[in-house]
């Protein structure tokens, strides 16, 4: 995310505010106040946009009291994470570190401790900024989004959740309830980001996850890139690895394909060729690390 070009104000336009008491109440409030009402979670994306008057909701529905949305639970072959779970909680969770090191990798480089104490996974996914690190992470882990609305609950795969920059499958009168990650044996994952300064949004970042079969060949893999205009993961690159023993030349080939598949733009963070180079370089790095982690992982 970049600031606007030129001068803008840094105080929001007038708005109204209500605090939801539970999920049902939040949905009622969204319904009552209509299309110009917005959920506010950590506020670390929405408030800056409001201050710059890039967003002008008339109503804010605050969900910060909804403790029912703040959880990290291991259940069967799933890790279930409530939408209001803060970045810090993800960063500090032992389950997350053990099962999905990519989340920890990413959380270490998302913003700074102050932002991480408030910002949420739900807000990150719903904001859907092209530079949002957790979007890539969830894509790569092929997570599922649990969405609640007036008509009940629906479960959406990440590939259907993101509808382009700043757009998701969550309708105005719905809210994201939970994110589910499937636990796989012999799996490993990794994330790496290049930033101009600690706490800055990514110049480029890459994430990868692999699941190995008992003989060590790659059974399942996913590769994702942040801030380079890539939707979802890169199936052609993933195909290079599937069914193979992890090898440097395969990493190189997969990274080459991933770099070619993205669409970076030239901006203050760097020119197109540099970003494409980073996509390549970082993909190789995360594949190496994810495979090494998978090889060292528990049998499940």
């Amino acid at each position: 995310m970049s600031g606007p070009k030129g001068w803008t104000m840094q105080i929001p336009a007038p708005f109204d505010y209500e605090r939801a008491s539970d999920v049902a109440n939040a949905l009622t409030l969204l319904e009552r106040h209509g299309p110009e009402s917005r959920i506010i979670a950590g506020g670390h994306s929405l408030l800056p946009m409001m201050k710059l008057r890039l967003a002008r909701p008339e109503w804010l529905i605050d969900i910060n009291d909804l403790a029912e949305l703040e959880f990290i639970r291991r259940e069967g072959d799933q890790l279930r994470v409530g939408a209001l779970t803060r970045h810090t909680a993800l960063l500090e969770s032992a389950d997350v570190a053990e099962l999905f090191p990519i989340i920890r990798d990413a959380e270490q480089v998302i913003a700074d401790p102050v932002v991480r104490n408030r910002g949420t996974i739900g807000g990150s996914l719903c904001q859907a900024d092209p530079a949002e690190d957790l979007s890539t992470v969830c894509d790569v882990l092929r997570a599922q989004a649990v969405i609640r609305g007036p008509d009940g609950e629906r479960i959406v795969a990440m590939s259907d959740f993101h509808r382009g920059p700043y757009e998701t499958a969550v309708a105005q009168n719905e809210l994201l309830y939970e994110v589910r990650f499937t636990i796989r044996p012999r799996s490993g994952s990794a994330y790496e980001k290049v930033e101009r300064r600690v706490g800055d949004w990514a110049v480029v970042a890459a994430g990868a996850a692999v699941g190995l079969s008992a003989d060590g060949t790659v059974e399942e893999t996913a590769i994702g890139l942040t801030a380079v205009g890539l939707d979802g993961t890169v199936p052609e690159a993933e195909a290079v690895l599937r069914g193979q023993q992890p090898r440097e030349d395969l990493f190189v080939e997969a990274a080459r394909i991933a770099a070619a598949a993205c669409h970076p733009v030239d901006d203050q963070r760097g020119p197109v060729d540099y970003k494409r180079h980073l996509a390549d370089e970082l993909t190789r790095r995360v594949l190496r690390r994810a495979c090494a982690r998978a090889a060292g992982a528990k049998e499940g």
Partner: protein
Amino acid sequence: MTTVQEHAPNPAAGDPGRPIGFGRLQRKEDPRFVRGKGNYLDDIVLPGMLHGAILRAPVAHARLVSIDTTEALAHPKVLAVITGKDLQALNLAWAPTLSADVQAVLVTDKVRFQGQEVAFVVAEDRYAARDALELIDVEYDMLPPVIDARRALDPGAPVIRDDIEGRTDNRIFDWEIGDAAETEAVFAAADVVVAQEVVYPRVHPAPMETCGAVADFDPVDGRLTLYETTQAPHAHRTLYAIVAGIPEHKIRIASPDIGGGFGNKVGIYPGYVLAVVGSIVTGKPVKWVEDRSENLMSTSFARDYIMQGEIAATKDGKILAVRTSVLADHGAFNATAQPTKTPAGFFSIFTGSYDLKAAYCKVTGVYTNKAPGGVAYACSFRVTEAVYLVERMVDILARKLEMDPAELRLKNFIKPEQFPYANKTGWVYDSGNYEPAMRLSMKMAGYEDLRREQLEKRERGELMGIGVSFFTETVGAGPRKHFDIVGLGMADGAELRVHPTGKAVVRISVQSQGQGHETTFAQIVAEELGIPPESIDVVHGDTDQTPFGLGTYGSRSTPVSGGAVALVARKVRDKARFIAAAMLETRPEDLEWEKGRWFVKGDPSAGKTIAEIAFGAHGTVALPEGIDGNLDAEVTYDPPNLTFPFGAYICVVDVDAGTGHVKVRRFIAVDDCGTRINPMIIEGQVHGGLTDGVGMALMEIIAFDEEGNCLSGSFMDYLIPTAMEVPDWETGFTVTPSPHHPIGAKGIGESATVGSPPAIVNAIVDALMPYGVTHMDMPCTPARVWEAMQGRARPPV
């Protein structure tokens, strides 16, 4: 933090932790800051106070067609909307700058930079004021902008300053110094000549507290009280008197606690003037405080120098001459804050720390459609640019000669016996002893070991760089015969009163923005009078409370005001001698001074402490002829010369060859600022300056697109370093007192900002040697480093 060479304990201090005089001492002002009890501009709330907000231009260059304020005025909480037309009626639409130019307070004819002030709303609260901005309807007629300074002098380039009669181009000035012919002759005969374009990009001081003012005009007695974020309250008062026609004795400028200045708060901004106009118009106090975006986009930037550097040497590494021509981008109005007679500030110190045969430079200043300002940002009036240029050029020469950059510097330093040293551009360096500082920094760094490690790493394809810089600063402007700002000589006053019980108050004309004046100046008095710093209050920042003087910037507080305070304390000490003599019924000549008391020669038990003398002065002692019944004094100090602090810096970086990411691994800073008053404050100033340097070297730039849109209008895009980007600073020092300063002190406020960027860039370029890189411009962001590695280093935009 690591400090080599602890300061020797002060023998005069009873408690070694609390010196009476010079020594390590925690800052007296810190308790109020760390407890949130500071009083900053935005903390000021006056009864009935209104709030102002500025409508700013969305484009860089456009004719103003019309402004419709009807709707804004209809807002229930809005009391006034002021436009350029209204100011024209008051003859306040344009105000003089600090550089013999004028600047629009509000646009009357055309917009000259994005973010320029167009209208001012006064409302009951700050939200309403901002909401009303959106209700003002402005029509603009777009004009092609001049953004790239290199295009500013093209024939046919749009003329930005058509408000100035007879202006047909964008040239502000041409200025030269040094002997062109002599320099040319040396270059022509030299074995080796290297040339390089070196760009110092536009950066911003970005103080934590933005600029603001609270104006309170009393319509009954015509008195203006103006609280301002200013580094120079007295100079401002005089300027307001001249500009607004308010008699100077009816103006009080009060600068409360200031959350960082770095030169950003030297000039007078339209917002300050508008707060005053708002108060006059509404009859109520008006507060105006900038948003971050306004601060970054419209207030004093720094640098923006495109320098063509050349250096000549013999083949065995004797540097003979330096020559440069500079294109200086001053933005839309020439509003740089600097001594009026030096349009390029002190850039002529680009001869550095080296004994040269010849030097020459030419600077051309141009207008562009960018924010005005310049010089700001801890730069000692452009010594920053000068040091960066010469230290890059020396490194490029070292590469060409295949010499070690530290050795090349050691070979060319001005020798200790050459001081006072007259350089080729008119400066007389007061004192220096460069080699020991350089050697100390090399020892602290383990220079030889670092070079060995670098060789090993290079063999493994890892990129490690070691960068050296050696700088000579020129600070403490200055002797009034040479330096003035719009006619005001750059001297400073001090008043000292010792109360009957021996507690004292010293009033100074400079003003702290975080430098620790309340501690440092108390320590100077303590050193001279032998009373503890805790017993001395330092008053600053309020024109009603302090003597006249030009303020704090250019590292001038200690060199100028520090001199004033030492002298005023000595005046008190001399007076105390007469009073003590009367008290002891002896002659003044028979008394001897030891820290804190006068005693009878040969009879140490017969003596009077300063406190006793103060009580005597205010008491019933029969005073000698001509001695008033107090222990007070005042002086105005006109320094005989500037002071020339120096330092040797070494930086170690690691560059990720795959991503271009730079990590500053170590930084060794050896500073010599002459006599060290409070080593703790000195280290703090150095730490801050070094952090600044990392920011400029790695990430900071105020960038523009071709249309003149500012791309760095928030901290999302104008990056400043955090604790994560900086290493554990390793500081050391040598002490070479100034021969002409009353206590030998030289000033430290800007040394590290001046000296660190070249060390860091030199280290990065050194790391990239395997890629054949000989130069790259700041900021060394990962992308720009990678481009340099591809052989495509390019100037910043």
